[in-house]
């Protein structure tokens, strides 16, 4: 195996934080692809630019996604990375593993790939970093086959203009604040939409992320076209003794809690903490800080926000409220129906490479709400429109006229 001098990358083996260079070298010690990857990355460091190129679409039979084709621009210098595709493997909900399955995954990665992975990709997948075109089918077969008794059975994740691999915070598995079963939701929804994941039929990508509460530990609002964020409807229960406990531990309840409550609905007189639950917007600040003392109660569910996307073309969008509250319980029928309705509308109104958030902007929220059968309510917006540029449908005016007729009859104004 060729030995590359890597003076620049060697620098990055030093220092306290774990080193990706050590990882590549560890793999390179026994894998020729990893070795040429090392060489090419060093060459990038030396010359200050990237040497991967666009390439033809590659994949496995019957799927349109899950693989990112990648080719070196310098195949003469680094022949083993002439093909260096990634395989996106759909992680289990919440990224929980047993050592058994991990070992099996690693074996496949070593056998067919470069021995390097990303744990995890930014969307959530397990990424096998680098393999050749001809290895794709074998990898796929080893991942999916149920022929032999074994632990591992994985499928590919999404890529291209498809539903992308959904992901979820660890939620009820290890967190006291989950308002719905993020993991189960993520799992069942992923299974429901296998076709949408594997066979790109959308006009652009679409992402789901499931967070159990407003902490949004899976960054759903900033990274998913559909962000499902747990919330509740009842009052916050208060254990006054525990409040004292926090105070004793050094918390300045007035500064840290009362004054930081965005709705100014908490008061504390040194004895009793009170919350005006009607005015609380459930931001979770007090609950997370007084975590031994406060907890939500009552009906549980999720707020569904739509539309996030990265900056290109029209600038970053973050998801916005579409369904203020939906119960989210297996089999998640309402949610699945919503997804289908959204996609139908999106499909009908979009051009290629337009994400759903963009299309909502282009068409206006009304068209979208009408398509999914949701009435407008003020919870959907931070504030109403400011310019007097107002569209009406004839039926809107008709409704106004009806109300006005009734007002004339009754002499009472209807607001």
């Amino acid at each position: 195996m060729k030995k590359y001098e890597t003076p620049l990358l060697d620098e990055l083996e030093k220092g306290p934080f774990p080193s990706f260079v050590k990882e590549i070298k560890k793999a390179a010690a026994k894998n020729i692809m990893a070795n040429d990857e090392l060489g090419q990355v060093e060459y990038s460091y030396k010359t200050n630019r990237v040497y991967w190129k666009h390439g033809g679409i590659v994949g496995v039979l019957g799927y349109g996604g899950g693989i990112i084709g990648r080719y070196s621009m310098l195949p003469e210098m680094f022949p083993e990375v002439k093909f260096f595709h990634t395989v996106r493997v759909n992680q289990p909900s919440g990224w929980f593993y047993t050592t058994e399955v991990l070992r099996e995954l690693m074996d496949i990665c070593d056998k067919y790939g470069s021995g390097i992975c990303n744990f995890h990709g930014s969307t959530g997948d397990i990424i096998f970093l680098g393999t050749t075109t001809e290895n794709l089918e074998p990898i796929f077969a080893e991942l999916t086959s149920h022929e032999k008794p074994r632990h591992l059975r994985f499928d590919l994740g999404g890529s291209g203009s498809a539903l992308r691999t959904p992901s979820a915070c660890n939620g009820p598995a290890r967190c006291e604040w989950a308002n719905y079963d993020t993991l189960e939701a993520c799992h069942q929804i992923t299974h429901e939409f296998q076709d949408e994941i594997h066979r790109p039929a959308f006009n652009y990508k679409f992402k789901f992320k499931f967070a159990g509460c407003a902490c949004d530990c899976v960054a759903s609002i900033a990274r998913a076209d559909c962000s499902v964020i747990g919330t509740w409807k009842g009052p916050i229960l208060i254990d006054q003794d525990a409040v004292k406990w926090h105070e004793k531990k050094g918390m300045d309840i007035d500064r840290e809690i009362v004054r930081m409550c965005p709705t100014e609905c908490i008061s504390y007189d040194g004895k009793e903490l009170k919350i005006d639950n009607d005015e609380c917007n459930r931001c979770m600040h007090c609950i997370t800080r007084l975590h031994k003392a406060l907890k939500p109660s009552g009906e549980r569910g999720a707020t569904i926000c739509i539309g996030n996307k990265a900056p290109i073309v029209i600038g970053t969008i973050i998801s916005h409220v579409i369904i203020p509250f939906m119960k989210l319980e297996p089999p998640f029928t309402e949610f699945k129906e919503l997804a289908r309705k959204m996609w139908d509308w999106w499909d009908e109104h979009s051009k290629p490479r337009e994400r759903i958030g963009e299309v909502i902007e282009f068409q206006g929220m009304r068209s979208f709400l009408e398509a999914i059968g949701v009435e407008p309510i003020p919870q959907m917006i931070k504030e109403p429109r400011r310019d007097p540029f107002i569209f009406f449908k004839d039926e809107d005016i008709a409704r106004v006229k009806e109300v006005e007729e009734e007002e004339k009859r009754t002499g009472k104004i209807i607001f």
Partner: protein
Amino acid sequence: MGFYGDRKLTAEEAKKLRETDIGPPYFRDFLPPVIKKNYGQWKEHDILSAGLMVHTAESGDKIWTIRVATPRLIATDTVREACDIADKYCDGHLRWTSRNNIEFLVSDEKKVEPIQKELKERGFLMGGIGYRISNVVHTQGWVHCHGAATDASGLVKSMMDELAEYFTTKELPNKLRLAVACCPNMCGAVHCSDIAVVAIHTTVPIIDHDKLGKICEIPTSIASCPTKAISPYPEKKSVKIKDEKCMYCGNCFTVCPAFDPFDTERDGCAIVIGGKVNCLRTNTKFARLVVPFISNRPPRWPKVVAIIKHIIELYAKHARKHERVGEWVDRIGWERFFKLSGITFTYQCIDDFTFMRDTFRNASTFKW
């Protein structure tokens, strides 16, 4: 290795064995017994140190979590090493976090000390829990993506070496989330991070007209441009770019490889700050540009790192407890941030895209 040992499957075999649309495995099969038992019944948690927390269930059962950093890009053998440890102390159970850390899930209190000791001995870095810097969300960079205007992994390593004690020990006013995106596609979704690096080009792409005609569609190329800088160039059966309108986003390249935005001298990094994802206290915030361009200086990007560290130290010193970076800056005002930090304010910080109007200051009320 694999189910078929070392032997690679033939195409023929693969065809027979493969199955489609099976979806991911059921996560419940991977949960530790104590989690299965107390699923959805957790009562509270305590953060015991930067790398250790314990969750207690209504039943009184507990699960300890030990979190360690990874570079995300990881060799199979390192995963195996983690497996060895998990076998020894966690009955074979472990997980990854949404920020690329490994969490060892310990059900037996007696094993909590020993696993930490062993992790330390093996050189794993424990930390990231609580009011600290956790791992850095980042993307492929020169390691794998065709579009990268800088490397991501190397930047992360350089930053975190300098900031490691904020991962392992030191506390900050609140969590601090870092991210790196290696091009304006922003796969790292840096736009809502406390502090992030986004790699940018600063030259107008060069067009290979022959290639364009052959492999790309002209309408698609034109439509790709956010600023409408691209127009038809019928003479060459290609397109041309109006230089003044191009802001080097590289989307034309994403859509069509005949555009070449790369420039070894003029690719580099911008720094944005003040984003946040969650809605605690204040709504989700966008990160905002403070440093528009720093030349790539691999392997250590010293200036990028220095500025980030400088900002973090200012934050540590000036922010109130529980304030995120953006909440702090919003409270004191961006003009005060620039004064405090000494960072040069440039034309580039002034928005000139769609939403500029709402970023201009419509008031005589600002700080000197």
